[in-house]
């Protein structure tokens, strides 16, 4: 009897902890997305040059890979997350300015935003309601992501538009897989640090948005 009570108590404590990580992750993700939008707007108003995107993405990724893990368990980690997302948002400004100047640019940006939101919420809802364990996807997604990076590297030299389109489509698939994988890890206790969980989900959303912009930008101007 006492053992049963102890097991039930442990399970409810674990569920509370998992729900806390999930709640904190989504709260921080919402705030960082808003902040990112704010810095993107500032960048557009300042009319930053296209090079800003490359510098921001490289800077953001370097900080995320090498600096954030060291501070993920301290309050400074939250500040670093806002730094990374603010930087990435700032880099997005020139990209949005470029798409806004296209004939149906406003439509492209709006659909990309809505599409990204729908994909993220749909996949998250799928994992949260079915509670499936997607941990088996880890190796597959990492290999896929590496192959995409190699293809992108090759396309810098080859400059084939169809290949750019293909890379964007594959990035969306892989990032969708990462949403399933990351959300599954949170609800099954594999990820207990909401700072790291937030930056992981933010990166997937960012990449899906950029890739959707590219696909809709190319297909939308195919006259």
């Amino acid at each position, binding site marked *: 009897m006492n053992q049963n009570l102890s097991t039930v108590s442990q399970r409810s404590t674990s569920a509370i902890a998992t729900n806390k990580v999930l709640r904190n992750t989504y709260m921080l993700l919402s705030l960082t997305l808003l902040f990112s939008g704010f810095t993107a707007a500032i960048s557009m108003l300042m009319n930053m040059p296209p090079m800003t995107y490359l510098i921001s993405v490289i800077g953001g990724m370097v900080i995320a890979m090498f600096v954030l893990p060291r501070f993920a368990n301290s309050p400074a980690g939250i500040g670093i997350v806002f730094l990374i997302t603010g930087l990435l948002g700032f880099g997005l400004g020139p990209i949005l300015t470029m798409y806004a100047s296209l004939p149906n640019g406003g*439509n492209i940006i709006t659909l990309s935003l809505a599409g990204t939101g729908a994909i993220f919420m749909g996949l998250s809802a799928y994992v949260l309601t079915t509670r499936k364990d997607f941990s*088996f996807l*880890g190796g597959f997604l990492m290999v896929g992501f590496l192959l995409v*990076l190699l293809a992108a590297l090759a396309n810098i030299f080859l400059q084939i538009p169809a290949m750019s389109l293909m890379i964007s489509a594959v990035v969306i698939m892989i990032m969708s897989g990462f949403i399933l994988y990351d959300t599954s890890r949170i609800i099954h206790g594999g990820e207990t640090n909401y700072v790291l969980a937030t930056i992981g989900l933010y990166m997937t959303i960012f990449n899906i948005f950029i890739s959707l912009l590219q696909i809709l930008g190319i297909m939308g101007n195919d006259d």
Partner: protein
Amino acid sequence: MDWVQIISALALVMFIVVLFPATRYMMKNSPKGTSSDWISFVIPLVVIVLFILLLVKLV
């Protein structure tokens, strides 16, 4: 080739080099999925592909 392309290429090489050990680790240590696990992954992807085709039509 301009210097923007060179910097992009160098950045991509750096990311590939940094991610490679983590990829190898995950390939060795990730649990294996059953066929029903993979189906539960493929179905939402198919829905996403159809959704993107819809978005392309709307542009």
